């Protein structure tokens, strides 16, 4: 798939929601309106910090009917690859950034009888864009947000505009106190579950739902903050005739792009399959959600956006 021309966006305002959470609101830098964004969609920002170029994906929290602005919420992460640190400390209102057009990999199911949304921490972001869309559809839903105790009021404020009954709950008691199996067990037939948050939470929801007999097609998760780096390695790009060093906090895709090679990519989060690249030599540490177990075991392809070498060297047909 070809990438559409990126959007030029101006930072309209920045609101601190909590010590480590900021909401950034963007408007089109050259006037007009943004394209209608997909519910559950995300955008990729190109962040230029001196000579360093970072590309980070963030869920849009603004709904499809909002086209004057796109909003994201960014958590300042201690182990940041630099993107959230840059946004929190160096970006100011009026700055113009490059933003790839919104992409949807986490849509609401049209045929769901009910939507069950489960968020963990910053994983609330795509759920915030679902809420107005579900209201517009008149859809039945239930939302459970897990948070640390001190952030419970923050998330309650974010969810307040949509909380009209018992269908929205923020849980501050930790995951052990959250009766996931009970929640999943009492859902009516035809319910779809959506989860976004830390890997452990997403694994718990998908694993519990599967164990309770939920059909695979009714379980949806967004990949969020999965790529956490690893040991450095060397990638040999056989067709391009060059070698690149992949650093500890850098992805293979970022290293390839930094070397000036145009590599295919779309979601940059291990979900869409666009960046699948043939492997000639070397063992792959697969971290994506796209390849089948057989394809991963075969070791003949790698998704450069999230996966890495399991060893010092990877030779790619690129």
């Amino acid at each position, binding site marked *: *798939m070809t990438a559409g021309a990126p959007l030029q966006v101006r930072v309209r305002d920045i609101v601190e929601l909590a010590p480590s959470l900021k909401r950034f609101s963007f408007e089109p830098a050259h006037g007009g309106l943004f394209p209608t964004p997909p*519910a559950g969609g995300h955008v990729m920002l190109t962040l230029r910090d001196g000579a360093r170029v970072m590309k980070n994906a963030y869920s849009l929290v603004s709904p*499809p009917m909002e086209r004057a602005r796109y909003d994201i919420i960014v958590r300042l992460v201690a182990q940041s690859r630099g993107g959230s640190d840059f946004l929190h400390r160096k970006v100011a209102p009026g700055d113009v950034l490059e933003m790839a057009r919104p992409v*949807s990999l986490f849509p609401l199911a049209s045929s769901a009888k009910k939507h069950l949304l489960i968020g963990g921490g910053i994983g609330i972001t795509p759920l915030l864009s679902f809420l107005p869309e579900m209201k517009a559809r008149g859809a039945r839903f239930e939302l459970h947000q897990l948070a640390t105790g001190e952030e419970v009021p923050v998330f309650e404020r974010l969810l307040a505009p949509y909380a009209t009954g018992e269908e929205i709950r923020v849980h501050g008691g930790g995951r052990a106190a959250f009766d996931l199996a009970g929640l999943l067990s009492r859902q009516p037939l035809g319910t779809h579950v959506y989860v976004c948050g830390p890997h452990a939470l997403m694994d718990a929801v998908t694993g519990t739902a599967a164990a309770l007999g939920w059909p695979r097609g009714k379980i949806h998760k967004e990949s969020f903050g999965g790529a956490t780096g690893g040991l450095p390695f060397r990638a040999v790009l056989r067709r391009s005739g060059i070698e690149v060093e992949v650093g500890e906090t850098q992805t293979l895709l970022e290293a390839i792009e930094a070397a000036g090679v145009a590599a295919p990519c779309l979601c940059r989060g291990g979900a869409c399959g666009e960046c699948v690249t043939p492997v000639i030599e070397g063992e792959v540490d697969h971290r994506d959600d796209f390849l089948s177990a057989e394809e991963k075991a075969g070791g003949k392809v790698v998704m450069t956006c999230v996966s890495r070498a399991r060893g010092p060297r990877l030779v790619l047909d690129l």
Partner: protein
Amino acid sequence: MTVQFKPAETFRDTFTYRKSPEDILRFPFPFPEDEYMYSVNIEPHVRGGPTAAFQAAFDIDEHYIAECRERERVLKEDPKRCQVLPHMMAAEWDSLELIMESLAQDYPEHFSLTKAGDLWTWVNRPLNIHQSFTFGKAETLPCGPFEYITRQAQGDFTLQDQRDDNLFVDGGMVTTQADWSLEFDIGMSFHEWHGPVPLAHEKGVFDRALKYLLRLQCGQPVRRLNWTMTVNPRLDTSPENYPVWGPDKASVTPDNVAEKVHLRVELQTLYRLPRSNAILFGIRCYLTSVADIARVPKWRRRLHRVLRDLHPDIAAYKGLPRFRQTVLDYLAPLDDGEPTSKGIAPDTDVLAG
């Protein structure tokens, strides 16, 4: 250039449909090479392209008013030509938004859309329509939002829901179809509704096309051309009406072949929709008679060669065997054997004859 609409022309009975010289030259001729075989011939739907038919998101031409009237007639006779399953309501509004905004942007002289929050006002000057409504409230329109807007667009449309890593045709407005039935296909999965196509399944065309379409993204529409041949400029060649148009195939003679037989091209466009994550599939039908094709030297040479060498299974699937030889006998003397350029552009701005 302002299009001169021809509101009175007909696509049945009297068949007064005719093409102006400009309309012939803007035809999206479907063959980029002198031979034809199925492939995943999908490309980005970007403005511009080899003929003027590719300059807008949803193309409007001189037949616009007459085609909308023909659609109205078909729907009156058979309301089931437009059906949308209930879970596709978000996709209906997505479609209305996309088509209205595209038409208003591409043809400001004919269409306008103004918004005050959710209160929208749509003006369609060629059809003399002025409609205010509330976006998201179906009861403020005279019919469902998908039916409402596709009654005002040329070509058929279907809505595909995406679930379980597949696409399902869960809605459509189908009145200008090449012998397929929405009533029969509605609810089918991608491989089910493509079931009858010969050769392409074995080549893996549908597996690859489905993978590609599952990844289709908002704002990055794609397109492909498909084709068949139709006797008389009849838009509604539906299975439901086969008794009406089937016998036409036996009416082709060496004397009338050039005017009677039409190359039928579908400019197919695919749009990912934002609220629903559905895909809007546009199937825009263009009809050009063999006589009009023969006025473009490159096109008449190529049509002759493609038809001459066409795989018999494809010819049979497209319903050509009864008149293919008659068309070839007409075109063969017009093919001087000269090489043709790659691509579908007419390579001329003047018509012969």
